[in-house]
């Protein structure tokens, strides 16, 4: 049966969509605001023990011995786990690229500060932590590998000796005639950039309760799991269990953003449960553990990049060399993050040729993990900064330079040199709207007036294309085994006509349960209050992936629509039989199967469901008494990558332009954001409030990356950031409430025309702020090409320019 998924809200079987497209109240919120959500730390199981993990204080050292005898004898301690147990029972965790992985606990040497060395399960977390202090570990210190430069030097100490090198992956891509366009360019604009480590910091750190049923050999893991099915497969691998003996129960999460490094904590808690006779073991990662060695560190990057530009400002080529300090291993799938820019390598522009030279190296920093946006936030900062440098060199207004280089509306669907296809767009329209919203001429006038007073105001006009809805093929080119990304649901009506949607993921904050309820309520013509969204454990859920890659809102919409289409067919068959009418005369409209020419004749879906479940005698032959349907959605028209990684990887291409105004305090180097405007187009806005939340949240994280956040290490690879006193998340005081407007260009290929929109603001904001800072610095002839633009860093530049002292303090701040 071919299933057609509606690509516009108007195609829903309703007179008018009643929920889709509206900022309806979120179904998630009553439980959140009343404190009844079952976050993992709220869960208590009978006989539950508590895990604490002893972590390495050294970045690189051989483990000579671990003595746990005193800990085992301590109050309340039931089990102690060491690397020896892990070596006996486990395999290293899954990594990409393959073979660059650690066990969940160090077995022979430690490779980063914070790497687990032993763990205790005790009757309380307090006693478990007390017992950790009784474990004696003897280390033989090894020379740490602190930087990519050190890592790549000949004779460097090796992070993974068995690999014979610290280079995890080196790969060059060339798309189009790159040498020619650079040779023919009138200008080549090149710069080096340094993006320092930042990362995801959800309100809730990782947590789990693992229970190893020793009788039937089944492991059940409850926890804050972002991708439950993927997590289950990984655990089966590392813990040597059949995959159908690992149940992952995803609890609601206090945020994710890609940073919940669950594998290690899950494996350790699981093994402790195994050692403790199958008692459940809870592990709640604390913030210090998270900051030191959780999944919150990403993007430790050195860029060397250039644009080839014609005299009229036409950009013809883009070359990028990236050296990425992945830290101690590839358990966070670093290649994915480095390869994602292939999906939108050349941004919003008609750049005919591009090249990407990618080197991933291992060092003794903590392993890096995914973070919202994956690779594009730093990549887009490089591209957009080079566009601004070009504008300055050619003395073209930065908005005008972009306008000249945009992919034109009539060129969609547009295939970028790196292979992905953008489904639809109108970039010029968004640019003109945001320039009007921000009153760009007035901003420039304000800047001119400020400059005349010696103040440093800067403006940026920065774009992004946000690839949405990733697919398996996106990362096959960099050694990631086929990770399917289906999204499956079951839509079920009960005997009273209530609707339950079983999904494979749980709440994480984005509001996907609300979107699911909106879509199913509109399709089946019920009230949202009649809909319940429920998370199925991984062993019984349909194939699914969950949150990640700006895909879930679109994917779950597709899955629900597919299941509803199947239900419509079944219900129509039943109704035709009961009403003794030809099925072709019947249509689904507003929750009823009714005669096309006489709508009063028909049955409600509730009536049909009730009949199906209670009166088998009235069912047509061959129809099961089951008013339920499953559907697993996957993006249409995907293809395998060619030898240069080119393929249709991301289904949708949302886009936005941000305009920022900043001021730099000449005396202190402090950057203040004075004004911020966004216009975006992510196709159909299934729930406009959700979209706005995604934008504003992305801006917040972008502000953090641009100005505040940084995982600092010293020259010996000791982390200098271990609490929120030093890792500076922006607060409501630092994040501008942005002015926003939008267009709707529905995707012609995605369910209801909606495009992935979870990451775009994070792609754009760091670039927007850094470009504005450089616009402000332009009169001094200085550029800041490193993030974050901390006051100290900016002040040093001002010192070099001699401006801070020459001008003296400029008066009182209020």
């Amino acid at each position, binding site marked *: 049966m071919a299933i057609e998924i509606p690509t516009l809200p108007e195609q829903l079987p309703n007179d008018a969509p009643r929920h889709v497209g509206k900022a309806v109240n979120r179904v998630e919120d009553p439980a959140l605001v009343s404190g009844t959500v079952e976050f993992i730390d709220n869960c208590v199981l009978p006989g539950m023990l508590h895990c604490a993990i002893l972590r390495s204080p050294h970045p690189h050292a051989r483990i000579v011995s671990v003595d746990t005898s005193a800990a085992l004898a301590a109050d309340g301690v039931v089990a102690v786990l060491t690397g020896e147990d892990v070596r006996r029972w486990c395999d290293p965790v899954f990594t990409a690229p393959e073979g660059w992985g650690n066990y969940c606990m160090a077995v022979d040497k430690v490779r980063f500060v914070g790497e687990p060395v032993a763990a205790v399960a005790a009757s309380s977390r*307090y006693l478990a*932590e007390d017992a950790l202090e009784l474990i004696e570990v003897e280390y033989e210190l090894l020379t740490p590998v602190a930087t990519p430069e050190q890592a790549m030097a000949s004779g460097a100490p090796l992070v993974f000796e068995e690999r014979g090198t610290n280079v995890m992956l080196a790969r060059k891509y060339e798309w189009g005639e790159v040498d020619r366009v650079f040779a023919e360019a009138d200008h080549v604009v090149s710069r080096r950039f340094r993006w320092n480590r930042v990362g995801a910091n959800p309100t809730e750190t990782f947590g789990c309760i693992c229970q190893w049923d020793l009788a039937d050999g089944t492991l059940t893991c409850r926890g804050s799991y972002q991708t439950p099915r993927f997590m289950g497969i990984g655990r089966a691998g590392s813990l040597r269990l059949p995959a159908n003996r690992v149940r992952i129960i995803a609890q609601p999460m206090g945020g994710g953003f890609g940073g919940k490094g669950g594998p290690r904590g899950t494996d350790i808690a699981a093994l402790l449960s195994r050692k403790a006779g199958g008692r459940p073991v809870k592990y709640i990662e604390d913030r210090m553990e998270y900051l030191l060695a959780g999944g919150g560190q990403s993007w430790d990057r050195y860029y060397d990049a250039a644009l080839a530009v014609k005299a009229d400002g036409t950009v013809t080529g883009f070359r990028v060399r990236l050296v990425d300090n992945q830290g101690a291993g590839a358990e966070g799938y670093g290649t994915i993050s480095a390869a994602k820019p292939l999906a939108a390598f050349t941004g919003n522009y008609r750049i005919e040729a591009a090249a990407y030279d990618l080197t991933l190296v291992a060092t003794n920093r903590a392993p890096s993990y995914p973070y919202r946006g994956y690779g594009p936030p730093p990549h887009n900062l490089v591209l957009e900064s080079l566009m601004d440098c070009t504008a300055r060199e050619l003395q073209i207004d930065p908005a005008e330079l972009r306008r000249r280089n945009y992919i034109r509306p009539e060129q969609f669907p547009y295939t970028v040199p790196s292979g992905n296809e953008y489904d639809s767009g109108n970039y010029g329209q968004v640019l003109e709207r945001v320039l009007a919203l921000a009153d760009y001429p007035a901003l420039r006038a304000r800047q001119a007036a400020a400059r005349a007073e010696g103040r440093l105001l800067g403006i940026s006009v920065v774009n992004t294309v946000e690839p949405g809805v990733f697919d398996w093929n996106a990362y096959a080119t960099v050694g990631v085994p086929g990770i399917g990304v289906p999204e499956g649901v079951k839509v079920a009506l009960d005997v009273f006509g209530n609707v339950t949607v079983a999904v494979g993921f749980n709440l994480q904050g984005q509001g996907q349960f609300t979107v699911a309820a909106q879509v199913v309520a509109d399709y089946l013509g019920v009230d949202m209050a009649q809909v319940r969204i429920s998370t199925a454990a991984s062993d019984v859920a349909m194939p699914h992936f969950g949150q990640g890659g700006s895909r879930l809102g679109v994917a779950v919409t597709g899955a629900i629509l597919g299941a509803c289409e199947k239900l419509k067919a079944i219900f129509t068959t039943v109704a035709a039989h009961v009403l003794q009418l030809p099925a072709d005369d019947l249509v689904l409209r507003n929750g009823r199967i009714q005669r096309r020419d006489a709508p009063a004749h028909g049955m409600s879906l509730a009536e049909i469901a009730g009949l199906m479940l209670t009166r088998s005698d009235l069912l047509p032959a061959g129809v099961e008494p089951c008013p339920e349907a499953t559907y697993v959605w996957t993006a249409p028209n995907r293809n395998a990558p060619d030898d240069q990684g080119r393929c249709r990887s991301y289904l949708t291409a949302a886009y936005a332009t941000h305009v920022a105004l900043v001021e730099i305090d000449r005396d202190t180097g402090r950057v203040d954001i004075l004004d911020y405007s966004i216009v975006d187009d992510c196709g159909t806005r299934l729930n406009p409030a959700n979209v706005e939340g995604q934008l504003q949240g992305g801006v917040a994280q972008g502000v953090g990356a641009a100005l505040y956040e940084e995982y600092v290490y010293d020259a010996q690879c000791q982390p200098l950031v271990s609490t929120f006193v030093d890792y500076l998340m922006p607060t409501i005081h630092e994040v501008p409430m942005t002015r926003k407007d939008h267009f709707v260009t529905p995707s012609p290929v995605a369910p209801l025309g909606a495009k992935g929109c979870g990451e775009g603001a994070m792609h754009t904001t760091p670039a927007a702020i850094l470009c504005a800072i450089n616009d402000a610095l332009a009169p001094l002839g200085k550029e800041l090409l490193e993030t974050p633009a901390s006051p100290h860093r900016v002040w*040093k530049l001002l010192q070099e320019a001699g401006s801070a002292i020459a001008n003296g303090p400029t008066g009182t*701040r209020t």
Partner: protein
Amino acid sequence: MKPAPFDYHAPATLDEAVALLTRLGDEGCDVKIIAGGQSLMPMLALRVARPEVLVDLGRLEALDYIRDEGGTLVIGAMASKQAAADSDLVRRAQPLFQAATELVGHRQIRNRGTVGGSFAHADPASEYPAVALVLDTEFEAVGPDGMRTIPAADFFVTYMTTSLEANEVLTAVKFAPFAPRRRWAIQEFARRNGDLALAGVAVTLDIEAGLCRDVRIAAFGVQATAVRLTAAERMLEGRPAQPQHFEEAGRVAATALDDPMGCIHASPDYRRHLVGVLAARALTEAAARPQ
């Protein structure tokens, strides 16, 4: 992040507290007093502080007051910082102290933290010690031998260390009357709103016939304790209250500063520079304050 084991006492009266502290001290116990716990609790959780015994002053409600004693503002050690920030009496009597209190963290932090706890904690990045140095502040402490008064200049010893004895309880902070003609300002530089300052400066001065008199400048966040910037004070004394002199005072203050701290957010050089900028700004702000 769970505290190491400790014994816990919550005495009901001040006398009981002092007797307990004395007894525990005689027994050689490592004792720590906890007031609001705003700073101590995280240190306990991180096991950075691991006293054997915690003596909680939370039941000493008699120390939770803010009152005027013949023109002297007296704040009980257990008054919360938010109570001080909200107090009209504090605002009228000691506007600099009130402004400094509003710079402490966020409301939740000020609700939890106490005035006495903050002074006794003596964090070098705290606004309070610097304010105490430029105001005529005294600390009232009660020990086994009764009450004594410690002037601010003798109270702060070094990094998180005061001259309080182990068996003394800080009971009150006293501020001598602040003359209405006196000018004041506090300026600080923090990475984010509410963060501990990377550097800060508090000033008080008189301006008589356009000339600076009795200038007091103190910096915080730059050394192991708050520090008076005496070179800049001397330089300004008797000079016209004009921007170029304030800027020069900033440069003098920065140059004269001994050995500023460094951290990942600010090098010693940057801190030194910030002190100069903030001193000049604070002096400018104070001079411009309407009388």
